[in-house]
Every structure is written in C-alpha cells, then in structure tokens.
C-alpha cells in the first residue's frame, strides 16, 4: 500500500495537484497550551458559506486529504455540518482536536460522518504534567474519555505527543497509555515560533541531551537514526524538492489566508479575495517556493547531511531565509548522526561536540 500511496503522491506532484490541505477552521481554543504558536482571538473567521465555498474549490482542484484543525475545532458550532459537507464532496477527512468537548454523542456523529482519523494531543500520562501544559484542570481526563468514546465507536484515533522540556521524560508513559487504549501514538519534538514571529516559546524545545535520548531510543527509531550520514551528495538529492509544501500541500487559515504549509507562514493569497485555483497556480510566492530545488540551497546543498536531513523550509523561512538552513533541524541532524552539519561547523557551540 505504501508503494500505491507513493504512486498517488508522484502523480499529484507531476500534475501540480494540491492533494493534501490543512484547514484551520478557528484559532479559538478552550486550552491555553504553553507551546502553542497561535493567537486565540477571533479576527473574523470564515463563515459556514465561505468555508463550503472553499471546499467546493478544493474538490475541483483535486484535493483528497483534508485535515480540519485549529484552535479547537469543536468550538465551531457548524463543525459537523462542515464535516458532512466535506464528506459529501468525498474528501478523506482527518480531525485534529484536544477532544475535551467530545462525548458519546459527538463520537457517534464523527463515526457516522465517515471521518477516517482523529488526532488528539496528549502531553503526558500524568494529569499534573498534561494539565499544566494545557492550563486546563482535568483536561487529561476529558481527552482520555474522548478517546475511549471514539474507540468504542470504531473511530481510528492517533495520540499526538508533542515533546518539550515540561514532558520530556513522559513519552514512554504516553506510549504505554496509547497501547492500553488500543490507539496509535506519534511523538514530535518540534516546537515552532508563533505565527507572528515571536520566538519566545522556542525556549521550550527539548535541550540537546533530552533530544538525544529520544533520537537514540531504539524502541522509537530502530537503528535508522543511529547511522551517520554517508556525507556523499548525489545528483538525485540535489535535483529533489525540499518538501511537499506548496507542491502537493498547502495550509488555509480561518481567515482564508493561504500558505505553503501550516509551519511555513509565507502569505501566498487570500480566499476571500481570490479563487483557490488562482492562488495555487498564480501566486508569485508559491511559484517561488516551487522553483526551489535542493541544489539552490546555498548552505545545505554542500552539507553531507543533505540526503538524510529533515530540513523544514518553513522553519528556515521563520529564521529569515527559506533557502537557508533550519537551525533546529541542523541540531537534530547533528544529534541523530553524531556529526556536525555544514551550518553548525563554524557558527554554533554544538559543532564543538560534533565529530564531522
């Protein structure tokens, strides 16, 4: 099935189809997570009619994978109407939520609508840790109750465990909890700056020793991340695209703004003023993103890590240059490989500990 899915992505890439769209329906939220990159005020969300209009355009453009996220999507009173509309247009719908507003009735409705997966954020198996991150008392208990309601309905649930200083050592407990609940679990140590550029929350990122522990935990990563990069730079890698952002993937904000990715806040158009197809095919910003090949990255194209690095162009953009390195990914690559990437060789203290 992985090959077949790759075939679909390749066809979408060749024909410039926005196969996957992440659509934030609201930035409002009933939690106040300490690492959140969003401003939770409502600056004028798209109405139901505006959202359904966008969904029509996305279906016409060829989008199959649609993620509704936020903010907390259950705060939209029209959420189930929008999901129903999207399913009638035959989108593959995934929902990202904290789950605390999902009871038996909501879980049954989600099952009935044919949502393929829900992703629910769980930060720790310990209430005192999880609730301190969300700043909502009993939020862990309520999120876990939602997972049980959804599982009882047969809805596929994925726990998303974002790692930061506060919960660095709790991921084994979260994985055990997921196992007990019979759901999948994904772990992500990525903390991004706020959408407005404020970088204060970046201080919550795991310090290097704790990140190293994650990257060397064989129960998580097998042997793959323990292998040093070959340091060879082949032509296929240099001809490659940095990632799918702006190629087969894009992000839409609750205000209709279009960006290459949820983690790549390069304003590329607005769906209150433009049709989606116009933005997708004619935006100078998206054209610029699409024009970039790995060989065009001044530092990374000569870095021995280039074929294995998980460089995020959006994080690089937030550091000031979408063609530059993403320092967070350079540091991750250093930790995974035990050898310093090019960007760290002369500029960072981390390079002194590297062997490359």
């Amino acid at each position: 099935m992985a090959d077949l899915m790759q075939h679909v992505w390749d066809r979408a890439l060749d024909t410039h189809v926005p196969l996957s769209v992440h659509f934030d329906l609201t930035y409002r939220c009933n939690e106040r997570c300490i690492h959140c990159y969003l401003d939770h005020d409502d600056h004028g969300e798209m109405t139901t009619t505006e959202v359904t209009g966008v969904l029509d355009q996305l279906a016409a453009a060829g989008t199959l994978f649609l993620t509704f996220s936020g903010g907390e999507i259950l705060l939209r009173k029209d959420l189930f109407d929008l999901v129903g509309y999207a399913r009638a247009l035959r989108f593959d719908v995934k929902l990202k939520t904290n789950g605390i507003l999902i009871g038996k009735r909501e879980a049954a409705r989600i099952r009935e609508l044919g949502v393929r997966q829900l992703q629910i954020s769980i930060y720790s198996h310990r209430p005192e840790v999880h609730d301190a991150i969300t700043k909502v008392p009993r939020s862990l208990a309520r999120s876990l109750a939602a997972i049980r309601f959804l599982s009882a309905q047969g809805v596929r649930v994925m726990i998303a465990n974002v790692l930061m200083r506060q919960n660095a050592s709790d991921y084994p407990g979260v994985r055990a909890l997921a196992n007990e609940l019979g759901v999948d679990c994904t772990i992500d140590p990525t903390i991004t700056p706020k959408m407005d550029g404020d970088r204060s929350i970046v201080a919550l990122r795991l310090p290097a020793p704790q990140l190293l522990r994650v990257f060397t935990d064989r129960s998580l990563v097998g042997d793959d991340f323990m292998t040093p990069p070959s340091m060879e730079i082949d032509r296929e890698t240099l001809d490659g695209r940095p990632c799918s952002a702006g190629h087969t993937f894009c992000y839409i904000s609750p205000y209709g703004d279009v960006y290459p990715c949820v983690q790549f806040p390069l304003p590329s158009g607005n769906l209150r003023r433009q049709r989606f197809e116009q933005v997708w095919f004619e935006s100078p910003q998206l054209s610029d993103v699409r024009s970039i090949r790995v060989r065009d990255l001044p530092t990374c194209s000569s870095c021995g890590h280039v074929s294995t690095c998980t460089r995020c162009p959006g994080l690089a953009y937030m550091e000031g240059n979408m063609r530059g390195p993403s320092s967070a990914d350079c540091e991750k690559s250093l930790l995974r490989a035990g050898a310093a990437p090019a960007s760290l060789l002369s500029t960072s203290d981390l390079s002194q500990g590297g062997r490359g």
Partner: protein
Amino acid sequence: MNDMFVARSERVAARKVAGEMVILSADDSSLYVLNGVGTAVWDAADGRTPLSAIVDDIICGEYDIDRESAWHDVQEFVDALVSYGVLRTSAEAIRMDSTPSKSQASGGV
C-alpha cells in the same frame, strides 16, 4: 446475466488524480487506485444507471472491447469492489445521498 444497479459507497473518499480515481476507505484506510476503465465504471455508478447500460454505452462505447468480454470484466470488477465495501449493488435503483447541499452546512460559526 442479471442486470443490477451500482452505487458508490458513502464510506469512502475519492478523487480523480491525473486521470486515475483514488479511493480511500474511511473504515479501514484501504487504498485503491482505479485505471481508466475502472474510473469510468466508478463515475457511472450513480445508483440509477443499470450495469448493462454502463457496459453498453460507456465501456463498449469508449473502449475497443466486445460486449461479452466487457460484461465479464466489469462484473468481476464490480464484485471485487463490492466485497471491499467500495461499491454496493441492488436489483432496484439506489438512492445516493452524497451530493452536498448548502442546507447541509447551514449552521452558524
């Protein structure tokens, strides 16, 4: 050779990507990619068009294939997709509720 009506399941997602119909099950995440003939059958599976008409008018009309072979291949294809929960069949016309309407999404923000 009994005729029947064929309808697309409401439990799947589907989109045509570069001419191929991509289908994903909401229930078990199974993925199917249909070729040109399969996509033509899927497009025609509106619950109102008899399978015989799909074979005669669409498949034999658009592809260089004799009716007997087309009927056999299409029936085999439909049987397979029914067993996967992607299509459903009935001796009677099937009502499909998958056309979105604005009234379906008329709630407020």
